[in-house]
């Protein structure tokens, strides 16, 4: 099988790699680019642990072929830290102990960031709907919802 050369932007940096034509983005991110924040839960688009953004839209990286991302922009959890400072979502997840085993956390952070950028003041129901594609088997979601609300509040204050 001949490979494909992929030229893309990840967390703002230009990245190039070569991979088989049927390789999925999650495997390229983890094994070729070294971004292991993206996790594989199900591999079939049900759990959201592999969530990243592709040209600003939230996707499961297990359901994207790497060949598709040529010329596109990807953002992962690794890009959330700015100037060595945790993103308000990351900080609030720590404050609220909104994680236990941590496997789902990177995907949830990326999904919650997309939500807050679109809707800075989401209701609890809106948060639960927006995170419906991200499964967590530890927390029972309550702490996650509260952490997202708190991060939203903090971000609204900052943007004022």
């Amino acid at each position, binding site marked *: 099988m001949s490979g494909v050369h992929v030229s893309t932007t990840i967390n703002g940096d230009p990245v190039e790699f070569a991979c088989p*034509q049927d390789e999925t983005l999650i495997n390229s991110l983890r094994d070729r680019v070294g971004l292991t924040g993206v996790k594989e839960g199900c591999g079939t*688009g049900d759990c959201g642990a592999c969530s990243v953004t592709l040209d600003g839209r939230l*996707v*499961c990286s297990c*359901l994207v072929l790497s*060949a598709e991302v040529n010329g596109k922009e990807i953002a992962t959890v690794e890009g959330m830290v700015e100037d060595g400072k945790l993103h308000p979502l990351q900080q609030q997840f720590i404050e609220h102990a909104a994680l236990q085993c941590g496997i789902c956390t990177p995907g949830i952070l990326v999904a919650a960031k997309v939500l807050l950028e679109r809707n800075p003041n989401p209701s609890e129901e809106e948060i639960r709907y927006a995170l*419906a*594609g*991200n499964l967590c088997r530890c927390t029972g979601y309550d702490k996650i919802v509260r952490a997202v609300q708190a991060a939203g509040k903090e971000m609204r204050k900052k943007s004022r």
Partner: protein
Amino acid sequence: MRYEAPGTTKEAAALLEKEKGSVHVLAGGTDLIVRMRLGLVEPDLIVDIKHIPTMQAITASASGTRIGAAVCNARLGENKALKKAWPGVVEAANLIGSDQVQSRSTIAGNLCNASPAADSVPALIAAGAKAIVVSKNKRRTVAVEKIVSGPGQTSLARGEVVEAITLPKRPARSGDAYLRLTPRTEMDIAVVGAGVSLTLERGVVKTARVALGAVAPTAILVPAAARAIIGTKLDDAALDKLAAACSAKCDPITDKRGTIEYRTKVAGVLGKRAAKIAFQRAGGVL
């Protein structure tokens, strides 16, 4: 496996025609890539249609709205004019999967994946939607209900690709709605789905189309259910007739999501409720 991303429909059709092995069209990939991973399909060639501008466009014209086959479902919900004209089609498309899936999945893909429980298909059938099917030497327009021929099977010939789904021009005082029954509100597959589209004249149903999903090998149009409400103001007797016609047309299976008896009954209930919503959206007073 070879991956190709042509820039025009013509190039895509040429690639599909030329390949002698197993070939699959890639739109959002939310079904195809899962099936590849599970080993259910082993493509020799994947033709990604997302780089084809006409397949990425939503365009309104005098004859209606054309939704390119590569337009992701999230974009349908973001399109205010489309949502206003066809709220039922848009709500059906937006019910499919999570936000992650919405960013990728398409109504054309939902149609061609040919699941009996596909959410957008009953809504599209009720809307009178058509698929524009293109191959190397031919272009044809096919009613959506003629595309799916059985679970996982379509009437598309080898070398054919759906370029777009078209919705007809909407007369005044029209409304549509789609409802599905699922045990959970999100991330679930329809036990039953019901789509209704209708147009009123002086408060009376003038034309209607009723379609059901997950109650037969394919989504089905139920003309008798439409006849039951045409000429009425959707009174209880008309709604009961609609429900009976929906249930009578069901040919479901029993599986973990529901029994034959349950699906047959719920089809009538959902048909009624969807008709009421469509009626109110058309400006009708119940």
